[in-house]
Every structure is written in C-alpha cells, then in structure tokens.
C-alpha cells in the first residue's frame, strides 16, 4: 500500500515535470525537466518493482541511473559548440 502512495507521489511529480517541459519558457527549463523526469523514472521503476514484488527488475532503474547523465552532458557539449561558433543563442 505504501508503495502505491509513493508511486502516485512520483507520478504527480512526473506530471509537473512534463508541464514544465511543455511550458518552457527557456530551453534550459526543458532540459531541466527532461533530466528531472529521468531521475524520477529511475525512482518510479524501483518503487514499482517493489509494488509488483519482482525485485529482479531493479536492473531497469540501475540502467536509468547510469545512462541519464549522458543526455545532459551531450546538451552541455552542444551548447559549448554553439558558443564557440558564435551561435550562442538557442532560444527563438
């Protein structure tokens, strides 16, 4: 039961993150929302595998915990490249 409550709280936060990603306004808000969504997914998967009582599925949460950083670092590199080529502006 407690797991259900926790997963609903995480789901709510995911909804709020999606709202922030859709609303913006700057692109970094969207990157922030995407990154936050990724960590929340890892949390949710961990809690759900307890809820379903199949703990061998914690591997999925582990995969997200490891891989999530790559996206944000790729964004950092992308922005660095833009700044150097003088096209720093990413917003409309």
């Amino acid at each position, binding site marked *: 039961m407690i797991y259900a409550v926790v997963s609903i709280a995480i789901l709510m936060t995911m*909804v709020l993150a*999606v709202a922030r*990603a859709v609303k913006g306004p700057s692109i970094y808000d969207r990157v922030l929302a995407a990154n936050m969504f990724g960590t929340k997914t890892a949390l949710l998967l961990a809690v759900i595998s307890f809820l379903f009582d*199949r703990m061998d599925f914690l591997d999925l949460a582990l995969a997200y915990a490891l891989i999530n950083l790559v996206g944000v670092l790729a964004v950092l*590199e992308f922005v660095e490249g833009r700044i150097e080529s003088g096209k720093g502006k990413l917003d409309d």
Partner: protein
Amino acid sequence: MTIVFALFLLTLLVVTALAIVRTKNLFVATMLLSIFSLLMAVNFFILDAADVALTEAAVGAGVTTVIFLSALRLTSQFERGTLASSRWIAVIVVVITTVLLISGTINTPNLGDPNAPVHQHVAPFYLENTEALMGFPNVVTAVLSSFRGYDTLGEVFVVFIAAVGVMFILDARQGTGPEYELPVDKGLKHHLIPRAVGGLLIPFMLLFGLYVQFHGEYGPGGGFQAGAIVATAFILYAILEGERTALKAFSRNAQMALIIGGSTLYGAVGVVCMLKGGTFLDYSVLMEDPVIARQVGIIIIELGVGMAVCGALLSIFHSFAARKPVEHAK
C-alpha cells in the same frame, strides 16, 4: 492500481507527443522526445515487458538524444514552419483515419483478455517448453535467440546495413587540407566535475553492460540491451574527452571489426550447426547434452548480437560527431 498508472502515463504520452509536434524549436523537440521515450519505457514496464523496457531505457535515454543533437549541430536548430501540404487537408485526413482506427478497435478483445487470439497460437508452446529445452527462465531470450533465431539474425543484419549506410553517407571526406582534419580535442576538458564523475561512471557502465549481456538468460537483458549500454559508455567517453582521444582508444577499424565480427559470429554458429548435422541455428547438435548445447549456442549468438549492436551504434555516433558543419552563404 495498474490501470490508474496506465491511464495517467498514456495521457501524458499523448500530451508530450502533441507538444513535440507543435514546437518550432527542434532542440526542444529532442528534449521532449527523450521524455517521450522515458514514458514509453515505464508503460512497457507496467505492461509486463521488462526486456523491452530495458531496451528502450538503454537506447532512448542516451543514444537517440545524442544522435539527434549531433544531427542538429550539423543542420539547423529552428524549424521555419513551412508546411508540406495544406494544413487543413492533413488535419482532415488525420482525423478521419483516427476515427477509422478507433472504430476498428471496438470489436477487439479487451486489454489483458487471456482468451484473445494472440495468446492462443505459439506463445503457450514457448512458455511451456523453455524450461525443459533451454534450462533457463527468461522466455523472451529463449524466443529471441533460439525459437525465432532466424528473425534475430535478420534484424542484426539490418542494423549492420544501417551502420554501413551511415558510414557511406557521412564518412566521405568533405575536402582536403588542414581545416578538414579532426580538430584538437576540446571535449569537456574545462569542466572538471563532469569529467571526474563521468570518468568514474564509465567502468560501471561497462560492467553493467557485461552483466546485462551474460545475465540475459536469467533476468531482463541480452545482446541488444548490452550492446546499447556499452556503446553509451563509449559515447560518454567521447563526449568527455573529445573525438580524437575517443577514436584513439577505439578506432573506426575496431568498430568495423566489431560489427562484422558480431554478425559473422552469429552466422557462423548456424553454419557449424549445419556441419554437425543439424539444421541452420539448431544448437542442440553442438554438444552431447542438447540442453547445455543450446545454452552454449545462445550465449555465443547473444555475444554476436551484442558486438554487432555496440559496434553499429558507436560507428553511427562517430560518423555524426566527426563531421564538420558546412557554412552556407545566405
């Protein structure tokens, strides 16, 4: 309980998809696409598809975003908002097709109906016989690598062909002269924290990739997921240290060898099976004990799949990353 989750997540999925189509900024579309992929993975997990969710996690969270960003670096980040056809014709076509598709679902069995036709044909056979024939519990891996081994061989070759195609299209020299050489590495050299943490993470990612590769018979995992995770680890290295260092560590030839070696390994197992008197990819003839023979065969072909996928994704990434943007006089 599960139903509530599903309603929630599916609605979010539609909202995200609408936002992706609406935005004019392709960078924003890429970020939203990564959220879309995460939502998709959670949905797969809730619908009992742990292996598929792991694949989506391994591919969608890292590789897709990175490849999209590289493509945006080489083209333009803003959509000019031109339309290919009249917007209203498109909307009418889409609405009519949606209504037709939804009306087509009315007579389909409910979600999760155990008497649905899809559950009657071969799936019970797979579920009943995996334990006896293969001796390991993951039915998905068993179907993937043994019962439907031909299919997977075909998919591996599709990945192979796609990687070769990207190489043909993007690896052509853009010109001669020093400005077309790979630049001296910038990477994220000025950023101490990402470099330290990322460098710490890479060995664990590789270890996790190997775990997924060789634990795939007993839990969610297998060659496809492991290949994607290992490729992501090397992509992270390339992001942190720059193209040149990454290529020095893992050259294009090595990547090519990985792709070719992996696909050939898969095919070679089939040929060895034929030489031993069985049919193509019938692993049971490889050894005395058919169960152990199947396990050995599956481990080898999963390794082949992992090598081919890892090499293909890496070589695709490097094809994009090594290319220089072309300036057009406007």
